[in-house]
């Protein structure tokens, strides 16, 4: 039911922000109180990668910054 959440490492996060050309503030947000964030033990400022099913592309990727 819940799509896959992956916690990105520091390096991966920096790489991602570089590729997307955005700062952390420009990413969509996810609450520290979100159950998946708690489960991943992600902290404020971490980036979570979402992999979910998409009717158009089969699989789609999204990113959330923990706030």
């Amino acid at each position, binding site marked *: 039911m819940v799509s896959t959440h992956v916690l990105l490492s520091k390096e991966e996060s920096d790489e991602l922000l570089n590729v*997307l*050309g*955005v700062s952390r*503030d*420009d*990413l*969509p947000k996810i609450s520290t109180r979100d159950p998946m964030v708690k489960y991943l033990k992600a902290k404020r400022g971490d980036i979570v990668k979402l992999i979910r099913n*998409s009717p*158009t*592309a089969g699989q*789609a*990727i*999204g*990113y959330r910054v923990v706030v």
Partner: protein
Amino acid sequence: MSLSNKKIVKGIKFGLLSPEKIVKQAVVEINSPETYDQDGLPVPGGLMDRRLGTVEPSQRCETCGARAGKCPGHFGYIRLERPVIHPGLAKKIHETLSAVCRECGRIKLSDEELEEYEKQMKELEGRNPNLAKALSKTVIKKASQVNVCPHCGATNYSIEYERPTTFYEEMGGKKGEASSLVRIPPTEIRIRLEKINSVEANLLGWDNEVARPEWSVLTYLPVPPISMRPAITLETGLRSEDDLTHKLVDILRANEKLKEHISSGAPQSVIDDVWELLQYHVITYFDNETQGAPSSRHRSGRPLRTLAQRLKGKEGRFRGNLLGKRVDFSSRSVISPDPWIGINEVGVPIEVAKILTIPEKVTDLNIDRMKELVKRGPNNYPGANYVVRPNGVMVDLRYVKDTNEIGNELGQGFIVERHLRDGDVVLFNRQPSLHRPSIMGHVVRVLPYRTFRLNPAVCPPYNADFDGDEMNLHVPQGEEAEAEAKEILLVENNLLSPRFGGPLMGAIQDFISGAFLLTRKSVLLEKGEVMDLLYAGSYEGPLPPPAITQPRPLWTGKQIVSLFIPESITYSSKANSCVGCGDCKYDDCPGDGFVYVKDGELLMGVLDKKSIGATVPNSLLHRIVKDAGVAAGREFMDKAFKVFLRYSEGNGFTVGLKDLEIPNTVREALKKRIKEVEGEIDEAIAAYERGEVEAEAGKTVEEEIEDTIMSKLTKLRDEVGDTAAKNMDHESHSYMMALTGARGSVLNLTQISAIVGQQSSRGGRIVRGYSDRTLPVFDHGDMSAKGRGFVESSFYEGLSPVEFFFHAVTGREGLVDTAVRTSQSGYMQRRLIHALEDLHVEYDGSVRGAEGELIEVKYGDDGVDPAKSDHGIALNVDRIIDKVLKEGEVE
């Protein structure tokens, strides 16, 4: 303003005006409620004081010396004898008073807590205003619950707020004593707010630099310049002051009275009354629709239009003036259909073409043409209305005695504002502009008469019909705008919808009827007929070999249509006329319902809504537009559609009551069947009344019997409808229209010829009306079919009065629902558009907001433009196979 003064606006910050600022920005104190003296001259210190600026062209401003129009207007101020609450900030004042100590003015939280919150606030400030707001909310909530001040130990009371601007302290109430509400006067409120220190004010949500808490209790009031509230002179010569002036007079009167009472030492209760009056006038001056304050009215009973009313709502400053401006070079007229012009075109009345102009620069290439136009002047169509000389001076040709003279003067650097002509591109729009194709570019065709003409094939995107609809037309005024209109907005470039991946425009109504009639198997055309049709379609190629040569050459309708289908098209589908084939029988389909186009040749099948209709994805039309290009699609619609119409004109297309007759024997059998089912229902009701009906799980007995009745009636209607449809004249034009999708449905036809069926209200049978029954002609508790809105008559026979009433009930409900739905969905649409207007796809394929914030990593997850997809599918493999094998297949 000189050019060097120009600065770039980085942002706008809103705050409160401090009393000092109010006085400093003013040029005069206003203290007299009198506006004019006996001689009609403005009273100094009155609301029309000459120092506030002037709007009369004859006078000079006493402050800046400039004349009306140049003088920007200057503020004055009123010193209020007693402070009053700013009505817009009453809620904020309540929060603040509740959170701070009544004695020392500190927030009623411990120093440690405050320190922690201040630290958090510092972090959030500027970076995340929403979270900062949420933080002050929590601080306020926590501090409001504290009764004893942790700083000075003073006892605090809970503060009650009464709309619009009254505050009470709930004193006493200890040890069973009755608590009493004690009013806090604005003077006291101001004192308390003054005590709050700057850091804590920030914590409570005040932006201390620009909005000190105590400024929310007004001691001075700015008086706007006269240019903001000009008096108007009526035709009768009477002056009528602006509503704001009226309101300011009220404020000044109350203020003066208050002053008198205070200086004469009147009793406190009298002073309080006038003070309250002053507060009331200030409230309604700000917002005359404040909750809790009766609106202030004119003598005529019309509510005054004060500050908030000027800004709010549809006609307010924002929606009415800033977001909705009126424009030049535009025109509006009733629209009417003209299928003989192209879909890219718009018919413009010659009268309109003589008013709307296009600025054309005079060059070596067009100088002769321009000279000719200028000489013809503003009254001879194609002419010109204005000439702009190289020095920028505009010459109005209406007032030029000899246009030949200025025509000969023309040379490089001149601009000629010439009449609108055939071939110019204009923007055409119909409200409500709900989506992009509500405004499209059209090529002008100047025509006689007074309506805008529109090809009916482009009605769907505008949602236009010709029952009196009006549309707007705008003329681009520069090369860039013209290029955009031509290359981006032109109708043919909007044929495919980005919303559902199919053609937005296409055949409707008679186009479909004509296409069907022409492509039927039985159609064989004489050479003359073929020539006539091809002429209508502006066909210029050779005649194809006739399908039949003996006894004389005859052509099929399909041959004619094929001449207009691009050669690259291979396509197959099932038409509506294929009824009850089950698995398709292809070329043996009795209704000729297997549509098969091979290399642009219509080999089998009839055309109908499914293959050429508007807003039908995966149709033949869609294939043509997608595979052969928009120009080919436009050409097909411009040419083939005219052939369809020409054929239906020549063939004769009409409908009559006879179309809907069914044999009397069938009619009687159906009537018998209706009686039978009604009998069954009566029996079921009797069983229910005897208590013999058992409910299925999850239903009450009442629901069970209701469902039984409903399903019996639905089945009856379907059964009767099917039989009637079977026995109708299938060759009739009425039936043909329903079958091909040109207009109407088989259900409509059966309602006319056989049975109207159950009428509904609020999603069920009609039950409301009199107590226990719908109408007094029925018994109490009548649950029968007839008693609850079943109409067993047909429109052909006519309805009984009771049936007619039920039918009207359903009709009215439908009207009311549409009215409610449109207004609600309209407002939702507005909100959504404003929320989403600056989302865009970046060059990297991601969706970004206005400031580059990431919305979606890849547009739609797959990065596909839905307008270039097949009904949402990026790559339709079946189509490609179909196209390569050219065998024709339908699922």
